[in-house]
């Protein structure tokens, strides 16, 4: 096995030719990365990629989702556009035959990947949703542009304990005539004295009354799905859907565990970020997601066994909080001497196992209520601290999402708790959809963080 490297798109073309000549087997959506650049995903030209065929398959899976969705629609597959809940409603949808779910929220990366050429943010601006809102506002433009995904047969959106900007954007969409099935998720609270409590995935606890309420909301969503799809979403089907979801989640947890604990980072942060995102809705193909994760895990384990990595062994271990709107930022971390050793990309509840020892609708409700964004900033900070401690993080990066309502206070809460309990250096950065003009500032801040962490090693 040769030493893994990070490649540019042009270098990947050469590698691709070599792999094909050597008999590379690919799924139907396979091909060179450069074709996506030609199709308009020009940001890829500024990124660095892992050189494994598994990484190629991962990127091709991600970047062909639009084609997959349109093909599915043409075949008569029921398409559910599920907004905000990050991992819950897709479990319902995929429990039905010939039904899939995708996240219109994922359009938030289109301005980055297409370097604003799709005009989605400008479209949102024209609707009064300007850059004081989270970059997920690109979703508005994506719905109106009619080319990024087919019209869903059903659009769902969780509301209640959700961020304001997403709620406002979804309401704007609804106000433009897009029907939305709203379902309610209350803010998770601690049980009162004497109140029946339920343990949720991820180690938090909630009152059983809240679990019951969320279960009733999910059953309401399921009833709409059943009526639309023409098939019952029975407990047995959902149980099977949960088992399938848990297979994916288990694979992802193993991948994260291997990557975060290895002496040398076996996979770059960028590919790990994309892999984590697959947990939410399987990139509209659950079977392929499983296959991609299996292949990535094989690569990672092989590299660990061979004591190979993509970064130097002394790369500073960084716990990263929140996903970035510009994928470039993950390359920058590594260019500055850091490596991701733990992550909280806002959807820990989509990675934790869904309980299989509870009635399936209740199990899914418990998982939905375990969403870190549904609980307090203090609880989220506690989990970040616990995981950072366990994973031996040497520094923490809190990446603010521009305009996101939760970031105003949450970042400070997390940073303060990290300092108080772990004494680690923390930096807060803000990454817009295209961070090119900010790259010098980002680099400076991350380099300073890395230097501070290295200095602590010497003490």
């Amino acid at each position, binding site marked *: 096995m040769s030493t893994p490297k990070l490649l540019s798109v042009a270098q990947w073309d050469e590698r691709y030719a070599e792999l094909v000549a050597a008999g590379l087997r690919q799924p139907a959506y396979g091909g060179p990365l450069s074709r996506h650049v030609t199709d308009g995903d020009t940001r890829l030209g500024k990124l660095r990629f892992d050189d494994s065929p598994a990484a190629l398959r991962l990127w091709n899976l991600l970047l062909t989702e639009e084609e997959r969705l349109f093909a599915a629609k043409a075949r008569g597959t029921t398409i559910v556009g599920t907004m905000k809940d990050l991992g819950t409603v897709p479990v319902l949808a995929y429990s039905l035959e010939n039904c899939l779910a995708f996240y219109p929220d994922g359009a938030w990366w289109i301005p980055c990947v297409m370097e604003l050429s799709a005009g989605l943010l400008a479209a949102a601006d024209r*609707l*009064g*949703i300007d850059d*004081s*809102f989270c970059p997920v506002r690109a979703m508005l433009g994506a719905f109106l542009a009619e080319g990024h995904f087919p019209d869903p047969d059903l659009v769902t*959106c969780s*509301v*209640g*304990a*959700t*961020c*304001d*900007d997403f*709620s*406002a*954007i*979804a*309401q*704007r969409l*609804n*106000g433009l005539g897009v029907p*939305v099935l*709203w*379902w*309610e998720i*209350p*803010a998770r*609270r601690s049980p*009162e004295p004497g109140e029946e409590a339920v343990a949720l995935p991820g180690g938090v606890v909630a009152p059983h*009354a809240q679990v019951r*309420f969320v279960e*009733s*909301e999910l059953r*309401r969503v399921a009833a709409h799905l059943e009526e639309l799809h023409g098939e019952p979403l029975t407990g047995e089907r959902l149980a099977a859907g949960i088992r399938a979801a848990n297979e994916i989640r288990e694979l992802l947890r193993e991948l994260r565990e291997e990557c975060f604990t290895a002496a040398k980072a076996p996979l770059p942060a960028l590919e790990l970020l994309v892999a984590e995102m697959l947990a939410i809705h399987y990139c509209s193909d659950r079977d392929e997601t499983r296959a991609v994760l299996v292949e990535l895990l094989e690569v990672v384990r092989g590299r660990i066994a061979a004591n190979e990595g993509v970064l130097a062994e002394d790369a500073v271990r960084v716990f990263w909080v929140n996903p970035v709107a510009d994928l470039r930022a993950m390359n920058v971390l590594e260019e500055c001497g850091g490596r991701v050793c733990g992550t909280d990309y806002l959807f820990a509840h989509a990675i934790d196992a869904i309980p299989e020892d509870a009635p399936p609708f209740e199990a899914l409700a418990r998982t939905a209520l375990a969403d870190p964004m549904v609980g*307090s*900033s*203090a609880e989220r900070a506690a989990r970040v601290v616990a995981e950072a401690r366990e994973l031996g993080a040497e520094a923490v990066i809190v990446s*603010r999402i521009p*305009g*996101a*309502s*939760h*970031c*105003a*206070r*949450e970042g*400070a*809460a997390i940073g303060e708790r990290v300092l108080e309990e772990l004494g680690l250096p923390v930096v807060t950065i803000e990454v817009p959809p295209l961070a090119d003009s900010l790259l010098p500032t980002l680099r400076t801040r991350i380099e300073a963080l890395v230097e501070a962490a290295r200095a602590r090693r010497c003490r």
Partner: protein
Amino acid sequence: MSEDRPSIAYASPYVPAEWIAAHGFRPARVTPEDTRGPGATGACPFSEAFVAATGNGHRASVFTTTCDQMRRASEEPAGDTFLLNMPHTESAASLGLYVDELRRLGRFLERLGGTSPAIEEIRRTMRAFDEARRRLLDARGRLSGRAWADAVVEFLSAGDPGFTAPEGPRPGRGVPIALVGVPLWGAHRELYRLVEEAGGEVVLDGTKTGERGLPAPYDRRSSGDDPLLEIAAAHHGSMVDAFRRPNHRLYQWLDHGLRRREVRGIVFLRCAWCDLWHGELGRLTDWSPVPVVDVDLSGDRGGLARMETRVQALLDVIR
């Protein structure tokens, strides 16, 4: 109601004052004076002002989940706080959620040393606050927009159902204007004066500190065994607000009010970083049959000049 009762601070119109009062506390709806401006980037200045105000001698404070900003701000005060989960959707289930939350609020108030009120005490308190609100609404026609708005704030902050609105000043003959949006607090309340001085008269107060924030009247004939259900129904049904999903009832309320009061212009009010109301600006502008001017409240006095300019521009367009 005795001002000697310990007070419970709250900011949302969907926290029923009579429920707090029935448990032996003085419900103090806080309209902060603080206008220092936003602190942390991205933090709503109203939420910051409310957090600061909760430290002003109140026994406890009640926050709600009407928005993410207030939900997260609830973690900041040092004293006793209660976070009321507010239903965002409109259904029997969401009403049930609201009822359960109000019961939970009641238990919180009892743990603070409040009473466990008997049904008749609750009904008596409901009647008292209902009558006070009716008197306020009756005064709408004889008071200027500014005087009426000040009366509402005075009533809500005192939490005294014996409150009676003043007799004047009377409404002017200015151009009928509607205010729509977030609460007006501190120096921002000068807006009413600015409207008058520019030749307008606020005839429809759709701010949270205005008539849009008042619950529907109770059915005086009702005598059910659980008055909390009536409190909840009146407040739940009156949640005409940007945070509701969907929020078409806000536009229904506006449509009715604009036509009935012959409004000729709208001053749209949003806090800096308030996504929920900011998200409505484009839709409201497209929908409105009358001109709309946008005023963002940043929480600092420097915004008054900006506010004045916008109001004058609106009145110039209308006239």
